[in-house]
């Protein structure tokens, strides 16, 4: 699920399995996790033109990612690889309550 791209950019693709899509609770969990990393992290719904800052809850909500859509993630910076892996894991595991 992870591809190492050129240079320092890491990317990932993951399907949003959450029953109601990227609503308030998943969005809060995603941005909280993203903020734990130094890396600059962007996400978008597959096919969208603009990348969105994964640390902005307002923008993640505005993305209106529906149940079943694919989320693309890219990150650059010192801990980018770990950041992408963590976000992919969060979405794959359907936003569990305990995120360590």
């Amino acid at each position: 699920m992870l591809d190492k791209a050129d240079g320092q950019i890491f990317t990932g693709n993951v399907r949003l399995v959450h029953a109601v899509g990227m609503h308030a609770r998943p969005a809060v969990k995603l941005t909280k996790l993203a903020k734990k990393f130094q890396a600059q992290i962007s996400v978008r719904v597959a096919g969208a033109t603009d990348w969105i800052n994964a640390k902005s809850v307002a923008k993640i909500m505005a993305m209106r990612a529906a149940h079943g859509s694919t989320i693309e993630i890219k990150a650059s910076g010192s801990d980018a690889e770990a950041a992408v892996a963590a976000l992919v894991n969060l979405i794959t595991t359907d936003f569990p309550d305990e995120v360590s």
Partner: protein
Amino acid sequence: MQGGATGLAFRGRTASIGFAHGPFVRVNAGASGERVAGSLVEEALALRSAIDVASGQIAELAAIAGGEAAQILEFQVALLDDEDFIEAIFASIGEGSPADVAWRSALDEQIADYNSAEDEYLKARSSDLADLRDRVVAILRGGEGQVLKIPSGAVVCADDLPPSRFLEIDWSGGGGLALLRGSPTSHVAMLARARGIPMVVQIGTITEVAAEVGPMALLDGEGATLELDPSAEQLRLFEKRRETHRKSRASARAILQRPTASWRGERIKLFINIQRVEDLEHADAQYADGIGLMRTEFLLAERGGLPDEETQFQAYDAVLRWADRRPVTIRTFDAGGDKPVPGFTQDGEANPFLGVRGLRLCLARPEIFAIQLRALARAAVRGNLKVMFPMVTSADELEAGRKLFADVVQRLQADGIAAMLPELGIMVEVPAAALAVTSFRAAFFSIGSNDLAQYVLACDRSNGALAPLMDPLHPAVLELIARTAEHGRRAGISVSLCGDMASDPRCLPALLNCGLRELSVNSSALAQIKQTIDRLSSGGGLG
């Protein structure tokens, strides 16, 4: 239902069931007050400090409230922590906007955006944002978010009430909430239900007189009524309803949690109907024996046209995962009739209820149907899936559907994709199917009593003028239900009923006497139906 002598009564929509009798308190939504803007730096500092104060207040509320309420408030805290979002507001202050104006316009923009969403859930989130907006504005205006002074047990009336304001009110002495606007799907409604606070929404307007007078109010969350300054007679009736409800609720909760329902020693299986995946979030859903009807038309209503296979698979899979080993019956697209879908249903039918709808439409559009069947065949390997076809008239239609389904399974398997043909059943809603029920090679039957009654009685169910005739307990309807149940018992085939009748306690004795032992109801009716079965079983009346 408005009248002078008997006190004023208003009707809205139920958001949380329960009863409250207490002082009427009208809360004004719009906070007034002017503030004088300072220099750019002062304004920026004022907003920064207001955000910090608000953040602290909300965190404190969340800590006290805990659980679901805390999660709701977390979104507000996250928004205050959102640098992208906040930066844009500071930029606007830098361009000369006063702090409160910049803040308000940024929030209003978000609120408008959420309000324009088609998704009910997103729409409901706009009240969380309004809550946050008003809190910060109040702090900026020096109000420091004054706590509402509400007497214990009051019936609080507001245009709308944000979640944090709800949490500031001390509900420990009971009370209720009457909103002129609001929505049953809002966070406040969720909180009220979780706390057992009665709540009625969408009351519309209450007359000026009423807003000032009524020292006492009666709020009936079940009947969705608000009565102001009630007469002795109104009060007596209210107390009677409250007492009935209290007794009924206590025993319904206890009965709901029993593992099974039984009637005269026979096991009665109770399933739930769902319209969409989110319906599983209902607190009572977990007590069902499975899902008796999952409608799939919601997939057709999503933006971006007809749903692809993957979108459908994910929805079906989510429900199967929720159900674990319990059975899940998914009904294929039931479009047409009163459910037109652009690009799918046929336009210009003179009589759409007797037209190309349900399975008829799916067989006429095999390219669309095949996508749904592929998604279902893939989901079938993931749990206890059953699939049923709606609006079936003849056995040939069932076989045509089965053949398409089998072909789809074969192709998937040839491509190395895990898939299987699930148990196939039909809805019994066309009178011909009920009369010739023995001719169908179905693994199960599910009686769609709404359409069955409409067709048997020749009454359009949306036509209010026919309401007195539209009686699902008409002997002709019951006769067809009994025949179907009888066939099921003889042939050892499961027969259930998933129409509105199953959720109506008054219809239960007739349905059980027809021989039905499986019913599928809305989650919200589950407790009451289980309780009614229990009462009937122990020889009691409907209560």
